[in-house]
């Protein structure tokens, strides 16, 4: 088991290094305007001097080595256009708490909505008729999955703010303006949790051990709670760390739409401002979150599911 974790950890670190290098090299291919806040007014000589000063004329490999070294020391560089000369780390530190607050709330909300919905849908599968919840849930899931999030968020913002009688934009001081962004962010994962929980639970429901538990004389209610739900939730636990980590980065679209001063909104801002160093760092952070999330998810599964360490040892990939 320790060996499996070590292997998985090494693989994650290698993946991270590859991602960072590729992103770094790709961003170096961008036009150099992205490193100056007033490129048009600058003299060619000054531009060259500044490029040399920033080390952007060095061989790519030297630059990469320096960049990785800086990252390892926790130096993320400075912003070039978004807020000139400010260390990126400082900018991020003001953004992360906002995203984290909203993200955690939305994650809690989506678990709170999605899990009961998934259970209700699976439960209505156990009955012959009265599949109301399944129908309601299916419509919801199809809608959320099929209609691009970029579209329904717009409508939710417009109609929601009218219904709640609040501003369309986020403001930290007004609690009511928190409602819509949190709801928006949670819709996708609510549908996700409901869909997968339903699917896993229906899979479990058809397994023999459920019949055996019933034959023991356990009530249907308890079979669902103690056996089916528990077992169906285990595969979902794998994705919880990823969801949790993404709350740090926030939803790119929602944050931008509501002008929330968080990480996601920041990414859109720096892209529109063509701030190369910041785009680079943010893209790297988002990719790392994906890798780390999956890694943590796998670790969590090893800890929770007694079968996994066994199966892995038995030689599955």
């Amino acid at each position, binding site marked *: 088991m320790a060996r499996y974790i070590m292997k998985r950890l090494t693989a994650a670190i290698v993946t991270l290094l590859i991602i960072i290098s590729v992103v770094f090299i790709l961003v170096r291919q961008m036009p150099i305007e992205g490193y100056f806040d007033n490129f048009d007014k600058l003299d060619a000589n000054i531009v060259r001097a500044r490029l040399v000063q920033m080390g952007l004329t060095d061989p790519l490999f030297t630059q990469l080595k320096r960049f990785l070294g800086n990252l390892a020391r926790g130096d993320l560089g400075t912003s070039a256009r978004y807020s000139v000369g400010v260390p990126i780390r400082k900018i991020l530190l003001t953004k992360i708490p906002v995203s984290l607050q909203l993200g955690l709330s939305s994650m809690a909300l989506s678990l709170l909505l999605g899990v009961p919905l998934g259970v209700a849908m699976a439960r209505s599968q*156990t*009955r*012959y008729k009265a599949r109301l919840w399944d129908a309601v849930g299916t419509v919801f899931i199809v809608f959320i999955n099929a209609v691009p999030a970029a579209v329904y968020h717009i409508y939710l913002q417009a109609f929601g703010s009218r219904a709640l009688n609040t501003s369309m934009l986020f403001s930290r001081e007004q609690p009511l303006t928190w409602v819509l962004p949190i709801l928006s962010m949670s819709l996708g994962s609510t549908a996700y949790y409901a869909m997968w929980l339903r699917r896993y639970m229906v899979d479990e429901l058809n*397994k*023999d*051990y459920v*019949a*055996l*538990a*019933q*034959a*023991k*004389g*356990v*009530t*249907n209610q308890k079979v669902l709670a*103690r*056996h089916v739900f*528990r*077992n169906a939730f*285990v595969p979902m636990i794998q994705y919880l760390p990823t969801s949790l980590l993404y709350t740090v980065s926030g939803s790119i679209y929602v944050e931008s739409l509501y002008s929330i001063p968080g990480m996601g909104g920041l990414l859109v801002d720096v892209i529109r401002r063509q701030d190369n160093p910041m785009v680079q760092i943010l893209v790297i952070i988002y990719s790392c979150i994906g890798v780390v999330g999956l890694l943590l998810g796998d670790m969590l599964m090893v800890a929770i*599911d*007694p*079968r996994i360490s*066994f199966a892995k040892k038995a030689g599955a990939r």
Partner: protein
Amino acid sequence: MMRGDNIPVLSIKDLVVRFDLRGQSLTAIRGASLELYGGESLAIVGESGSGKSVLVKSLMGMLDKNGRVAGGSIRYNGQELTEFRTEREWLSIRGREIAMVMQDPMTSLNPLKTIGEQIGEAISLHQNLRGTARRDAIHGMIADVGISDPLRRARQYPHEFSGGMRQRVVIAIAMACKPKILICDEPTTALDVTIQAQILELIKDLQLKYKLTVIYITHDLGVVARVADRVAVMYAGDVVEQGTTEEIFFEPAHPYTWALLSSLPQLGRKGEPLCAIEGTPPSLFEAVKGDAFAPRNTRALRIDGLYAPPSFQITRTHSAKTWLLDPLAPRIEPPEAIRRLRG
């Protein structure tokens, strides 16, 4: 374990079970009648799809959600089980009176709970034990089904057990309910041949120890010969013949039973082709006209295609649903292989 004149503990009469399948109605049990006597071992045999499993599931109210009892009666202990509607009513039967051992031990245990927890669940429900008493009961149960080192084993997960061991655990769970009737649904099909005999022995031992009535569901006639006192042969959702094991093996009366026995490879002779039953069972989506086996019966009578045969009592213990037993029917001898079995 002859039954004498005792009253059956469980009696199924003209049971009809239907399933709604994608807008169509499938009649899985077509008026089957069967009795179960205290302390006996009854084997229900028949090919896949003949309704064996559905029959026993209807005894526990565990039909799939699209299935229902559409007619007939199941009487147990003075209760009419077909009138049970709520889960509460069924809970007085499930586990408490009738327990079940499922076919595939690899899937019938919850992979995420320890063996101890799973046995304990049944013990808490039916023996009302708590704390150390419960723990001792769990360990006792594990030991009872022949698993050594119960203290350690109770903390292990199903994947740490072999197939045969898991089946012992499943039996332990069923026995932990302290049932009066144990249904074993193909208990050995998924196991190695070497393990099969051990499991059957275990069930037999437990039957003696706890004065159980056991229903075996199987298509393995070898198992039947080994464990059963009485045999019921099912075909296309109906019990076509029932009798003591000796009667079924040596005096079979129904052409389907003949065919079933003839297809035993052991009865074949070197050089002769193996006997197989031609054709396929009838579609249960449609009403069956006459004797369900008639289309596959090489020596069917004209009436077989027109009228369903009633049950003819051959001896006190032996009955069969075939027109061959009608006084008007011609004398048709069982096939060669059956006579060989007899001789």
